[in-house]
């Protein structure tokens, strides 16, 4: 609006006589004067040149020479005193500025008083004509200016109104859709929080349980070893007895057979070995649980991607054994990654879990890690049934699941996606039916840290 074309409004600036008057305005007056007895009636410009004239017009079409001289000398003040017996001269003013002359001459015979009266009357008439024309010009100019400006303002207002109307119309139309979208967003955010809360609780619980199991496991393991040593001593003693034939009696032989001592001595070795193995396994599980939950590392720290992958696999060892899955590790050299190890493990875990359920038997999961420039690239491939192309774009959506109702809530990959995004990385999936699925995670090793807003703070 402010930039609107500024109309040059200079009311009646520099209007000369010719701008104000035209022949039809003046000639009838001049003609009437000649008819009333004048010899010559003329209107001139400010230099004394005739603009309009009637009667006996001189060839040079200008005022008498005495007047012309006075004009040249700019002696305007004395001009009107130059009037002679047989002619009269009056200056015509417009806005206080002399812009021309009104001249009338008469034959010598004409009464001088009559000439003066004729001059006065006609000059008054001429001034009224000029005045009215100027007024009309001013009014027209002003009117045009105002109308044009008002019209342009109206156009501008109309444009703005149309734009805002369109905006509100669009807003109204999309409002419902936006409410739905926002509601979905809120629902997702809420579920993520719940999930996170749940994972944190499970982590804490696991860490607590791991700690509680650790102590009794310590003495069970140690006692088993001691027990094994004791048994060896007892065994040796028994062997000694049996080799001393002199001391052998029928009675002791019968008792030995009855109590299956030979079998026991043999079996005890296996039992204790199995128990020690079991205890060792429990110990490993506890260590893995502790590492996985990272209960002591709530904040980001430097970590090894390969180690965290091993921790995750460790947590899943039971699942892996149950499903007789084979894990093929192809770890490369990857620089340290800065992040929350618990979250990274969580991200890996959800993909590995899906891989372990990708088919019923002969599962092979290939885990590859490598460094490409400043990125760690982790690929987890299975040989499962694959992900149908029509749902590939939806697998990271919250609540999207192919499992039966009650078996999964469809948050696993969403959580993974959020964690990877949080560290400025991305995750892609490639899959063809019956040819397995490959998830490729790219994580920047430097630069971007803590992008997305953390539901996992």
């Amino acid at each position, binding site marked *: 609006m*402010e930039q609107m074309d*500024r*109309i*040059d*409004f*200079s*009311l009646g*600036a*520099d209007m000369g006589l010719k701008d104000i008057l035209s022949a039809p305005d003046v000639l009838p007056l001049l003609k009437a004067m000649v008819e009333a007895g004048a010899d010559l009636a003329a209107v001139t410009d400010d230099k004394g040149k005739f603009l309009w004239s009637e009667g006996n017009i001189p060839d040079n079409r200008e005022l008498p020479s005495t007047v012309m001289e006075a004009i040249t000398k*700019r002696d305007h003040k004395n001009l009107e005193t130059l009037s002679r017996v047989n002619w009269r001269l009056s200056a015509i*003013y*417009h*806005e*206080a*500025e002399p812009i021309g002359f009104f001249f009338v001459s008469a034959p010598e015979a004409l009464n001088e008083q009559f000439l003066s009266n004729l001059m006065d009357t006609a000059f008054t008439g001429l001034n009224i004509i000029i*005045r009215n024309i*100027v*007024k009309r010009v*001013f*009014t027209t100019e*002003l009117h045009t*200016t*105002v109308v044009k*400006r*008002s019209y342009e*303002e109206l156009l501008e207002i109309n444009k703005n109104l149309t734009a805002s109307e369109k905006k509100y119309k669009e807003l109204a139309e999309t409002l419902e859709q936006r409410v739905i979208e926002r509601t979905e967003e809120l629902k997702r955010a809420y579920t993520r929080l719940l999930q996170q809360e749940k994972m944190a609780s499970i982590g804490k619980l696991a860490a607590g349980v791991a700690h509680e199991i650790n102590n009794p496991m310590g003495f069970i393991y140690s006692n088993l070893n001691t027990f094994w040593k004791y048994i060896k001593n007892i065994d040796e003693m028994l062997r000694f007895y049996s080799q001393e034939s002199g001391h052998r009696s029928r009675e002791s032989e019968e008792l030995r057979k009855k109590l299956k001592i030979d079998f026991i001595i043999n079996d005890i070795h296996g039992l204790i070995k199995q128990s020690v193995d079991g205890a060792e396994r429990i110990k490993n599980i506890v260590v893995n649980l502790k590492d996985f939950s990272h209960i002591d590392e709530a904040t980001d720290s430097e970590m090894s991607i390969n180690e965290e992958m091993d921790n995750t696999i460790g947590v899943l060892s039971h699942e892996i054994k149950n499903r007789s899955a084979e894990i093929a590790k192809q770890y490369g050299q990857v620089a340290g990654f800065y992040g929350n190890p618990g979250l990274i493990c969580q991200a890996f875990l959800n993909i590995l879990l899906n891989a372990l359920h990708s088919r019923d038997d002969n599962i092979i999961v290939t885990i590859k890690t490598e460094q490409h420039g400043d990125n760690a690239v982790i690929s987890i491939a299975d040989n499962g049934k694959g992900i149908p192309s029509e749902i590939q774009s939806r697998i990271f959506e919250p609540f999207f699941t192919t499992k039966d109702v009650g078996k999964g809530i469809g948050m696993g990959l969403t959580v993974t996606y959020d964690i990877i995004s949080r560290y400025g990385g991305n995750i892609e999936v490639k899959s063809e039916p019956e040819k397995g699925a490959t998830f490729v995670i790219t994580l920047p090793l430097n630069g971007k840290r803590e992008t997305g807003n953390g539901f996992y703070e």
Partner: protein
Amino acid sequence: MIEYDEIEQRMVLKLVYYGPAMSGKTTNLLRLHDILAIEGRGDLMTLDTKDDRTIFFDLLPFFFTAPGGLKIKVKVYTVPGQVRHDATRKAVLTRADGIAFIADSQISESANNVESFENLEKNLAFVGIDIEKIPLIIQFNKRDLKDIISEDEIHRAWESTGIPVFMASALYGQGVLETFRRLVALTYDYIDIRHSLKEKHMLTKEMFVDNLARLSADLAEQ
């Protein structure tokens, strides 16, 4: 804003009497017309009025030639004060070279003064004139009436702005000439900076003011 034609040696200046409706803008020009010498002063042109109210504008023109030959035309305009004529006010204000704001001294009119002054600020910005630079004076008119805002109060309110303030009773011709002379003097300063009126055209401030605001002979004798 000044219209200046160097080849033709012409300069056209525009002074505007602004203010709320019925504050006495036209009356100011009428009195000026009455008291100023006829020489170099044109007639007051009043475009149509309705019930004593200006619809378009009034125009009091002046014309004189500087010693150096520069022809100077000064056109003094009034604007219509009524709110509805804002488009006309903008048109008249365009390319103004000086402004006299005529305020109504009556206490009851205070709000209208404020509104009109804000309108002036807005319209000056609209037509691209810097209110800080253009010559501007304020006249508190109608000092002859009762229930008017006190002079002390007026000075207190306007002192900090640095805008010259005049008291007037235009109906009785008081303060009208002083207001005009100061406006003309300020306008001279404003133009002299850019067009060297004194250096190039041998036109001093005194000459400029006297040519425009010269009392008619019979008044001057008193």
